[in-house]
């Protein structure tokens, strides 16, 4: 019994209550949020693998044991989520969007509980708590009406998911009589050889939930809306941390290895179920990429990008090989770091420029140089460029896929990766490069708190890029705890794959040397002078009486218009339309059913009598 675990849940709840009281004073609310995050991180230092805590809840007529249990996976997730949350809340001290700190703290409590819970009651409780708190958080974006719709949409998806899990939890409970997650997983593993379809059915109930939360195809439709229209300070958390709950759930509830015993293999020795799942991941990755390329709203663009990255993660962990799991978790971590960073820099940019439309921005790099560099490192990571942190995991994912001889899936993932480069550059160009509009002449760099955060994030992305071993070692422990053989980690700088190894520090040394050479060459060669941006091929002339402005020269509208035609089939996928259609259909039925209540006393009496007669007839027949 380690009572420090309960503090991980209780502390944020208390902090949330306090913050809720002072919510009208935004800075106090944010400050308490930040302090609570920091304190929780501090408490987390005293938490170690293997600790557990349980308390009884007198409920359902028996004493339910709610258990917290720290596994390798949970401590990893706890560290990355709380650490990122601390950074984000630190930044949010200077932020002016309508994010409510106390809701974030509620999510933190749920976050810690989800990651530690070893019983389905607590897990479900925390899951639902996280669900509604995040839905309410989504309310209050810059565009009120749109954020309202986004919250509703997200809500419906989230609730549908929870109810699916609800069903699954109790089905397991009916079969085993216990709510313990580990016991139920053990039970599922024991019967999978006999009743594979039955197990698959139960596992699917959980999976729908996790896929919805992670935004995996075909449940991805809420993601762009919720990300784009949530408060700007909340989006980093939504994308970086909250999308990982689904991944955590998949890793936890789905020992996909158990499918191996129940189902025949598809290609490459992967069981059918896993194979399908790999393809779901691949489709998500490609779909997210392709849709991201054509977005104009930058938050939407990166929402689709998150979608795509989670597709990578799912495809990797669905393989359920040591490399696959390692790569999946590693990529989840990397995604957390770089996408969190990107959204934080976006927060900085949007707060300064007041718009999230790519076509309205441009040329901000001179105005916000530190944000610019942070963003640059961020997209370099996201594009998987060594030595930044996104590279190792993408590389491992390809290794894992090739190892299972899945060339088509790998090719498509590669396509997604190249496409990622396209949309990342589009965002980069449209925000920071190109012509600076006169509207932004007065834009300033973020204040000191923001700069500190950005420097820290840049450092983190480079550090974990060059020294991936600090992440790969804990992941190795996770893989080992799943009963797989972990990948060897030779030294902190190594990424060890199946086909070859990479010593990342070598790459960074090579880059350092070559950049030195480049700079030397640059400075020994003839002098240059800086000219204004308008001094380009227009020969310094922008004739305003022709109605020309700097924006006229900013190429960001319809950036990849020529390739749109190529991807036309993708835009015909109307998953969103399907969900909305279901909604409309329900509404129509609702209006029809409402007509039962005609407002006439006689009709009501008539219904009652008809009901009675039907019963009497039924009783007669019985």
């Amino acid at each position, binding site marked *: 019994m380690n009572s420090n675990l309960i503090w991980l849940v209780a502390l944020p709840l208390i902090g949330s209550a306090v913050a809720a009281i002072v919510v009208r004073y935004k800075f106090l609310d944010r400050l308490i949020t930040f302090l609570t995050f920091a304190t929780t991180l501090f408490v987390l230092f005293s938490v170690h693998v293997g600790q557990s805590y349980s308390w009884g809840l007198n409920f359902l007529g028996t004493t339910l044991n709610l258990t917290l249990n720290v596994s390798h996976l949970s401590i990893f997730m706890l560290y990355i989520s709380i650490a990122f949350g601390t950074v984000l809340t630190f930044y949010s001290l200077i932020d002016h969007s309508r994010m409510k700190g106390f809701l974030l703290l509620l999510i933190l409590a749920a976050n810690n509980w989800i990651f530690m819970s070893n019983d389905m009651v607590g897990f479900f409780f925390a899951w639902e708590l996280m669900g509604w708190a995040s839905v309410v958080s989504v309310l209050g974006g810059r565009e009120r009406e749109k954020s309202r719709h986004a919250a509703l949409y997200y809500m419906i998806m989230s609730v549908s998911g929870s109810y699916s899990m609800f069903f699954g939890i109790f089905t397991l409970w009916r079969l085993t009589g216990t709510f313990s997650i580990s016991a139920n997983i053990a039970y599922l593993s024991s019967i999978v050889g006999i009743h594979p379809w039955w197990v698959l059915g139960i596992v699917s109930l959980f999976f729908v939930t996790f896929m919805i939360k992670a935004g995996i195809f075909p449940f991805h439709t809420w993601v762009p809306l919720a990300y784009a229209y949530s408060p700007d300070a909340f989006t980093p958390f939504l994308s970086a941390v909250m999308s990982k709950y689904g991944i955590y759930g998949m890793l936890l509830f789905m020992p996909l290895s158990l499918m191996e015993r129940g189902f025949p293999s598809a290609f490459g020795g992967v069981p059918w179920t896993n194979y399908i799942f790999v393809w779901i991941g691949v489709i998500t990755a490609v779909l997210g990429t392709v849709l991201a390329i054509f977005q104009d709203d930058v938050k939407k663009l990166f929402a689709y990008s998150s979608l795509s990255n989670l597709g990578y993660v799912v495809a990797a962990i669905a393989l359920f090989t040591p490399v696959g799991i390692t790569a999946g978790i590693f990529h989840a971590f990397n995604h957390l770091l770089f996408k969190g960073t990107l959204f934080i820099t976006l927060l900085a940019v949007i707060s300064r420029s007041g718009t999230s439309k790519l076509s309205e921005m441009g040329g901000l790099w001179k105005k916000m140089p530190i944000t610019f560099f942070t963003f640059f490192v961020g997209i370099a990571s996201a594009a*998987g460029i060594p030595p930044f942190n996104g590279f190792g995991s993408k590389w491992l994912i390809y290794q894992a896929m*090739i190892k299972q001889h899945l060339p088509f899936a790998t090719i498509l993932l590669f396509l997604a990766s190249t496409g990622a480069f396209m949309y990342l550059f589009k965002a980069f160009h449209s925000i920071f490069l190109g012509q600076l509009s006169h509207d932004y002449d007065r834009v300033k760099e973020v204040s000191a708190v923001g700069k500190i955060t950005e420097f820290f994030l840049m450092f983190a992305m480079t550090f974990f890029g060059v020294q991936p071993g600090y992440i790969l070692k804990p992941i190795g422990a996770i893989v080992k705890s799943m009963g797989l053989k972990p990948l060897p980690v030779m030294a902190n700088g190594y990424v060890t794959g199946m086909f070859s190894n990479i010593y990342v520090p070598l790459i960074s040394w090579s880059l350092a*040397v070559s*950049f030195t050479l480049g700079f030397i060459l640059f400075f020994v060669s003839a002098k240059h002078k800086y000219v204004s941006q308008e*001094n380009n091929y227009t020969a310094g002339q922008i004739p305003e009486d022709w109605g020309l402005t700097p924006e006229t020269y900013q190429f960001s509208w319809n950036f990849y218009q020529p*390739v749109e035609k190529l991807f036309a089939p993708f835009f015909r996928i109307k998953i969103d339309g399907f969900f909305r259609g279901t909604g409309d259909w329900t509404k129509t039925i609702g209006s029809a059913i409402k007509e039962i209540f005609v407002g006439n006393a006689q009709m009501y009496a008539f219904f009652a009598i008809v009901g009675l007669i039907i019963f009497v007839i039924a009783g007669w027949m019985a």
Partner: protein
Amino acid sequence: MTILLKLIQGIGVGALSIAVGLLFIGIGRKITARIQRRYGPPPIQNFFDIFKLLSKRSISHGFAFDLGLIAGFSALLAAVVFLPMGQINIFPHNSSLIMIIYLMTMAYLGMAMGVSSSGNPNATIGIARALTMMMGYEVPFAAVIFSVYIFSRTGSLANIVAAQSGGFLNWNLVRLPFGFVAAEIALQGMLGEKPFDMTIAPSEIASGPMVEMGGKYLGFGMLQHSIGLFIETGIMVDLFLGGASNIWIFIAKQFVLYFAALMINAIMPRFRIEEGVSFMWKFPLLLGVVQALIVVL
């Protein structure tokens, strides 16, 4: 001591790649001129050009512009040391092909950042075309890479070369013919030669990315192009032509590939950008996929 040795080796390889690249481009200019019945410049003209460009005063649009062009040059320089070429193989245990490709991406990113920060729309259009084209040729090329990976059971270029040792018949060119053809077409796109030269299409977008470059910036661009040429043909040699036993044979093989590309370049018109991508996704991708299927099954 080892470190110092490797450092010197690395710098040497960099210089070599620049020299070979520039020479290739020079020869290429000559050959193209001859095909077009011109006299053409001398093959070493490019060395003069570089020297001339680097010693000219020029204008810049700010530090992002500088940094981008330096990054474009330096990242390729950093990538070239991992390429096994004949007996020169500085880091034999660290030559993963995918790593090299991703490292090269940094150069493209730097270049793109630099020229886009100038604010010239033609440059950005050129970059957008380059990225689009990149998506076009990388897909068939990825198919080929993965076929080779699965076929050779290794992802390290050094090991791929080792697996092809023992004569002409062991070359992947012979063993994976479809893959070779696909990769050859993809190489045409990578090199930016016709029919895939819409990135720098001089008559449409004023040479695209190069529009704002002058003086040493253009020099850096040329250097980048020459190293890129060297790496791309080098990768092809390692993948399909069985590497080489020494650097001269390696360069000769590279030249053969470049020569083929030049020939195609000289006689082809230019694709529109979307035609280029869809062409890449039809014929070469089909070949690559067929090759992958053959390897897997």
